[in-house]
């Protein structure tokens, strides 16, 4: 197990290195003189020079990268060009919120997807299956931000059940946290739920036709046990693959959802940075988001070892 884990980590390192190149290289994509563009059209020559110096744009590329990556390793992601706050602090404020949102969304999406997939796989070809299959196509097709607006319209403005916007940290008031996070997490989780349900339904149907499922029934195991144990453990393997991709997508989708529900997460920080071309902040957020995505993918991959014993080296 440890060896499996270490191999996975080892393959991640070069990828991470490539990612840092890309993130760092964002500056190079700025059309024209980056310092001029960042400083803005009304900037004086002195201001442009100040920007150039602060970003270290006057030094050779390799040196710039080296400085950036070494300080990033110590947790220093530079300072914002506009607020002069350390980037790490801004990210530290937003990251827990975004993680809570994405985590809740993942949980909600699985709570929707797993029962739906089991039911429609077992009742294949019935109206129930057809409805859930149309439902999951819709779940993929509906833009999450639009769905969020509809939820606000329905549950907040019309029915008044849940707050439309805002966020309360969980350690302050768990109940208020839950009521604030429910709609955003549902909004963010629906597309993933639809995708997981489709994937899982297909793999359950495939597994149901396996001989070992017949063996499990021949042993006299109850239906619940046959499905819950023998079918699900095997059918979950492709789902885990999808989940890895979904976690990555959730971190991106969070930007939209945070915007709609006024959740002060990483997405808000990112959007502010983008509108002001606050390059260090953009770089920092992308880097941290990739790191989080990679870490969660690593964790997801570990469940492979549990689900599929063949992967587990002995």
């Amino acid at each position, binding site marked *: 197990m440890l060896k499996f884990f270490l191999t996975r980590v080892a393959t991640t390192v070069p990828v991470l290195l490539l990612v840092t190149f890309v993130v760092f290289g964002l500056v190079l994509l700025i059309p024209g003189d980056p310092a001029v563009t960042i400083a803005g059209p009304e900037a004086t020559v002195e201001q442009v020079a100040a920007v150039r110096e602060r970003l270290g744009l006057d030094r050779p590329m390799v040196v710039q990268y080296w400085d950036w990556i070494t300080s990033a390793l110590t947790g220093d992601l530079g300072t914002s060009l506009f607020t002069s706050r350390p980037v790490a602090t801004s990210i530290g404020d937003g990251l827990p919120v975004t993680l809570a949102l994405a985590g809740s969304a993942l949980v909600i999406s699985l709570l929707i997807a797993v029962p739906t997939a089991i039911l429609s796989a077992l009742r294949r070809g019935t109206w129930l299956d057809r409805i859930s299959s149309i439902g999951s196509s819709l779940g993929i097709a509906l833009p999450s931000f639009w769905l969020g607006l509809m939820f606000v319209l329905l549950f907040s403005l019309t029915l008044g059940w849940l707050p439309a916007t805002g966020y309360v940290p969980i350690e302050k008031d768990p109940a208020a946290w839950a009521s604030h996070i429910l709609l955003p997490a549902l909004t963010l989780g629906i597309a993933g739920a639809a995708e997981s349900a489709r994937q899982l339904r297909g793999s359950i149907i495939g597994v149901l036709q*396996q*001989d*070992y499922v017949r*063996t499990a*029934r*021949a042993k006299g195991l109850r*239906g619940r*046990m046959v499905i819950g144990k*023998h079918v699900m453990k095997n059918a979950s393997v492709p789902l885990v693959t999808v989940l890895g991709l979904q976690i990555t997508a959730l971190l991106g989708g969070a930007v939209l959802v945070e915007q709609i529900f006024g959740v002060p997460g990483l997405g808000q920080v990112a959007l502010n940075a983008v509108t002001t071309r606050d390059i260090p902040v953009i770089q920092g957020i992308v880097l941290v988001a990739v790191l989080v995505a990679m870490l969660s993918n690593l964790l997801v991959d570990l469940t492979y070892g549990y689900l*599929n014993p063949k992967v587990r080296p002995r």
Partner: protein
Amino acid sequence: MTATTGSAAVRAGTVTDTTLEVDNLVVDVLTETGWATVVDGVSFSVRRGETLGIVGESGSGKSVTCLSIAGLMPPRQTRVRADTLRLLDHDLTRLTPKQMSDVRGPTISMIFQEPMSSLNPAFTVGDQIAEVLRRHEGASRRESKRRAVELLDRVGVPSPARRAAQYPFEFSGGMRQRVMIAIALACNPDVIVADEPTTALDVTVQAQILELLREVQHEHGMSVIFITHDLGVVADVCDRVLVMYAGQIVEGAGLDELFENPRHPYMEGLLAAMPRMDNPSEALASIPGHPPRIGAMPDGCRFHPRCRYAADACVGGGTPPLEVAAPHHTTRCLRHSELTLRGNP
């Protein structure tokens, strides 16, 4: 329908000893073109300690017969009817799926053909044996684990304690089939259905598995229904044999009687396709043509299009009845009294 004549003869005097009794079993399955009858009026019974062989080509309905009895056909795509389905004192026609699952394991259990795919790849072998004991005997986790190791030992898996913690992919085909037998044996069933248990195995392993089956049967005195298309295996293990063709029993007799004096041309054909003990160099004959397709059964004797003895009477007029041709010997051939068929003693 006089299909019960044969089993009635067998049953006479041995009623108390019967573990499984099937009367007029009809199974329909849903195909792309609608419902089709794949098992048509099958009746037989099995005595305690007896090994009953069911022989037939692929698609003759032998596996469907047994899967239907055990309630293992997919429910929404299968209709199972029978006048009698009695397993010891259980009337299987009246059991709910839940009650049926209580019967599978302690009363009737199965060994399947594909040892490679019949075990769940995601669980240890020990767990797959132990869960039967937990389910049916309420054994604790620890107790069931201990007994799983015992069972592995019993079916001849070397170093059972270590092997119990391994996964199916770490076992060879023969070893996996031993595990399947351990699972089937776990709750000491009264009837074991072995559905082509050796077909997928090497010849030497085949012999070992057959020997193991014989041993356990001897020890526990259970009834075994042995489904196979291999007459060599039948000759090796069975006491009594039913021959199925196109969803029906066409002949039934004791092993020696059947091989010496087949009373149905189909059985004669099967025997002719088998190497002879007394003259192995003789050319093997195969039965011309193919079995009929499901839903396109020939009228009259279902075997007549392939039968070299077919007469006008054999064509049309519905399926011939199963008749007693000799003591404990039934056949569905209209001309059984006129024909002298060649056996393979």
